């Protein structure tokens, strides 16, 4: 599961101004895993995007990674 976390980290760190403030937490549930992404307050817009476009693209790519493991994943931006 760790590469999925790496995927989120790679994308988030590539888009923000403060890569050091990027934190991804994994919360495992019975059938699904929740990834909680937190970034510097000023960077929040950069990982969400207009109308959530960046966040939704991240979710789409995340699903590809998760599908390989037959797991359900959700991404939340804290």
């Amino acid at each position, binding site marked *: 599961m760790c590469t999925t976390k790496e995927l989120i980290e790679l994308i988030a760190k590539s*888009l923000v101004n403060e890569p050091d403030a990027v934190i991804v937490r994994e919360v495992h549930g019975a059938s699904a895993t929740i990834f909680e992404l937190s970034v510097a307050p000023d960077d929040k817009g950069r990982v969400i995007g207009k109308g959530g476009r960046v966040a939704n*693209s991240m979710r789409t790519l995340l699903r590809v990674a998760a599908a390989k493991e037959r797991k359900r994943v959700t991404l939340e931006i804290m």
Partner: protein
Amino acid sequence: MASQAKGSVEVSAKTVEEAIQRGLSELGLTRDQVEIEVVNPGRGGVLGIGAEDAQVRVSALPVEPSVEMESPRVEAEGEPPVSQPEPLESEGDVAKVAAELLQGLLDRMKVRARVKARMGDDLAEEGEEPVLILDVTGDDLGILIGRRGETLRALQYMTRLMLSKKLERWEMVIVDVESYRVRRRRSLRQLAVRMAERVAFSQQRVVLEAMPAHERRIIHIALRDHSQVATTSIGEGDRRKVTIVPK
């Protein structure tokens, strides 16, 4: 979020091309940075009778402002926007950086695939400049395309965002998987021609299924010089559909 919409303009002119050019100069953007929607392809009319101006909507792509946020905000206050510095990287370097970024994404998505960069014009319209294309090849990559290309669009969007952030300027790049875009483009053009024939024959309008902007654009351009039909789009957002109507 600091990025503000550059907005969009609706422009009318004698031809679609002319209207697009006007729209671009009004926004101060290049073709790569906008989404173009043909509102009304217009018509020449007979001896000037029934002539109608072409009308297009030119909208700044959302990714562009987020790249511009990079310019020092304090200095930019109240000053005209500083023009982007000359590219430091050669075309080859940009291609290499872009391919590496995409490869990095694919590796972490646990997709075994190769990325090859090339400059190509087979995904551009006639008369447009060749663009940087990243071809992804491998086994069983349908998962990277997704339903109606949804995953491929996300992959391309993310690659563009990451590349633009890294280069600190907007860079046009197209991501293709197993030539999906090339094939899709070919079938959309064939669909356009076939439906145009039907409309010309029956004199009944045909509404195509909903498509994203760049796919609608392929249809509009394929039929822009058609003598018997015209194209418009109806509906909003994800539900927007090209309509082919008799002239």
